[in-house]
């Protein structure tokens, strides 16, 4: 039983925290302008490259492609950054796809892509969902037909975050038309500059765009298959496990509540008993969320599979984020009624951020696997209940 950091982990935490403390309000204002201009969620290339400069992208990857660190140190790193409200989504997506290349990519793909991910000059998007394949991802219809040393890809991917910036879409496609469900699927890295690729904006409530990617007979080199041909589902299942272990508002919630605690310092009397009880319960639930995430990291460190524990963390964190955003918006009303101009600072920055979070957290129980799918995973893999 150890809920504290050892000497090495502490030194690492202090190094990350020193970086976090070096980020000023003006820096964050710059990141936010950048995100607004790029019309993207939590991705600022300037911030990404600040991490690259320190060698902090590709943490946990083996040498020579990355920097091998234990799982718990990755946890500490992400925790420090997320709880400081810094824009990590772009890093997480690139790293998740990089990790799949580390695990399953050919040597040529690793040589081509991993240095670019660690430099921060190439962006990747995950192409999984389709118009008719959401939670039932295996209903996907995008096809890749073998043609010599290439595949011809036709179909469409939906909800692809940051595809409009991406150089490559990491897409799951059907390569064996006669196989069904998880058989006969493959992962292809598709260059977005290829002829036949079209990317259309899908504006969302968060204030940015996601995308629909259309592939019309796009010719992709067969060398861009990640992993074994027709066995892409195994790769994707891993990618989804990585995605579920990301924070969907749970860690960021500590950051919002820290700001609130400082805002209301010395003003408990203004809140009243009912709100104080709620506030105490939020502090408690954020501690629980942290412990669920810590357990996930510790299990990973021990080399075990933690599917149910990952789903528990995701469900709890994302649902907590929604409750917390609503509670804080209520408290900060009427300021929290007004939507600020994206990328610009507000007079009441906390209220403006919470107004945004009330919109943004709406999707946290949907992206990365819906709460319903996560609960199926908990029930089947964690509790051992039969499939429905």
């Amino acid at each position: 039983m150890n809920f504290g950091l050892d000497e090495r982990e502490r030194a690492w935490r202090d190094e990350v925290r020193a970086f976090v403390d070096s980020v000023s309000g003006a820096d964050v204002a710059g990141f936010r302008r950048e995100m607004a201009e790029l019309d993207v969620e939590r991705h600022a290339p300037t911030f990404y490259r600040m991490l690259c400069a320190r060698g902090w992208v590709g943490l946990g990857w083996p040498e020579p492609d990355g920097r091998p660190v234990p799982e718990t140190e990755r946890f500490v790193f992400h925790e420090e950054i997320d709880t400081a409200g810094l824009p990590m989504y772009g890093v997480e997506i690139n790293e998740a796809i990089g990790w799949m290349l580390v695990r399953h990519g050919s040597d040529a793909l690793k040589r081509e892509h991993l240095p670019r991910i660690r430099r921060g000059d190439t962006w990747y998007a995950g192409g999984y969902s389709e118009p008719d394949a959401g939670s039932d991802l295996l209903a996907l219809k995008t096809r890749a037909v073998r043609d010599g040393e290439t595949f011809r890809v036709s179909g469409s991917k939906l909800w692809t975050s940051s595809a409009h910036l991406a150089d490559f879409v990491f897409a799951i496609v059907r390569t064996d038309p006669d196989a069904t469900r998880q058989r006969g699927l493959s992962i292809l890295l598709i260059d977005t500059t290829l002829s036949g690729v079209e990317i259309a904006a899908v504006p969302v409530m968060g204030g940015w765009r996601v995308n629909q990617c259309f592939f019309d007979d796009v010719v992709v080199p067969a060398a861009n298959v990640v992993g074994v041909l027709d066995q892409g589902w195994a790769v994707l299942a891993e990618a989804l496990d990585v995605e579920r272990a990301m924070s969907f508002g749970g860690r960021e919630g500590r950051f919002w509540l820290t700001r609130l605690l400082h805002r209301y310092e010395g003003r408990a009397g203004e809140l009243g008993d009912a709100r104080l009880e709620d506030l105490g319960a939020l502090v408690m639930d954020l501690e629980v969320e942290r412990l669920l995430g810590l357990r996930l990291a510790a299990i990973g460190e021990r080399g075990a599979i933690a599917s149910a524990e990952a789903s528990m963390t995701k469900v709890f964190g994302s649902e907590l984020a929604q409750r917390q955003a609503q509670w804080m918006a209520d408290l900060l009303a009427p300021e929290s009624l007004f939507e600020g101009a994206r990328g610009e600072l507000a007079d009441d920055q906390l209220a403006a951020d919470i107004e945004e979070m009330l919109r943004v957290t709406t999707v946290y129980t949907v992206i990365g696997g819906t709460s319903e799918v996560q609960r199926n995973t908990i029930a089947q893999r964690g509790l051992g209940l039969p499939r429905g």
Partner: protein
Amino acid sequence: MLDERWSDAEVALVDGLRAVLVPECPTSVVRAAEASDDGRAPRLEAALGAFGLDEVADAAEPGQLAAAAWELGRALAPVPFVETATVRAVLGIDDAAYGLEGTVPASVGHVVVAGAGTSVDGGLALVSVDAAAARRTTAGDLLAPPRDEVGTILDTSETDRLGRLARLLGAARLVGASEGLLALGIEYVKGREQFGRPVGAFQAVAHRLADAAIVSDGAGLLVRKAAWVAATEQGGDGAPERLFATMAWAKAVEAARVVAASVHQCMGGYGFALEYDCQLFSRRMRSWSMRLGRPGPELASMARALLEAPSRDAVRHLWHNDQGVPLPRWAGDLDGNRERATR
């Protein structure tokens, strides 16, 4: 390395306790104790005495105390360990129950109470238990009030530590019982068939149990962290700091109530029938949850402490922080404008 599991010492204790509880405390023993006049299980008491439960209390190691309470809770053991170990660990007094919030198990000779019997306001005293005034709770155990007598005046500086340890052990007992009941519910829905398939295959049932598992696991993790924080190695005084005592207790109460309601719903009429063990768990979990008063005001008081700079900055081990709840620099820069404007 971070590790959310019990340490070796607790694992050994848990294994040893289970080796006693599995044969000596099946639910038939719980039922027999409930049906008896004094609510006790003499053979189990003797077995636990031989195992060395008193020595565990004397050692006053918070992880081991919590692990023992957890396992006893899982087995619904009709013994007053939580109440007596708290007093034994903090004050070194034998056969006395923690009773600062009210009545105590009638089988214990003495009770530690606040105020009563002392001339000092907020004082602490040891008085005898008025066993003749014992009443049976819905959980089937007998609780009795303190006798109206002067008693022995105790060191008031231990009042706070007693309350904090009582909360940790009470939380551990609830989490153990929650886990026991959840396991029972899971087994039931795997075997019970309706509409031609196990009811556990229906999402409406499975999701309810998934939610119960999340809150039960969360409460268990919080109990373990609270025990870790309490240890002298972390600078604790053998009981969790107030903040962790409050959180562990409040979450365990919530977990117990969610698990009880969920498993009952999944077991349908069988859960309501006395013949099945579900009710043995749920009646105790609900009763134990009310023993220390409603957690809400304690959560409010925790929030008040976090809203005053000196007490907020003194808090240890909350979330990812070693001490206090520091604000990242940039947020101070941007939130500061408004702060000045509204003052």
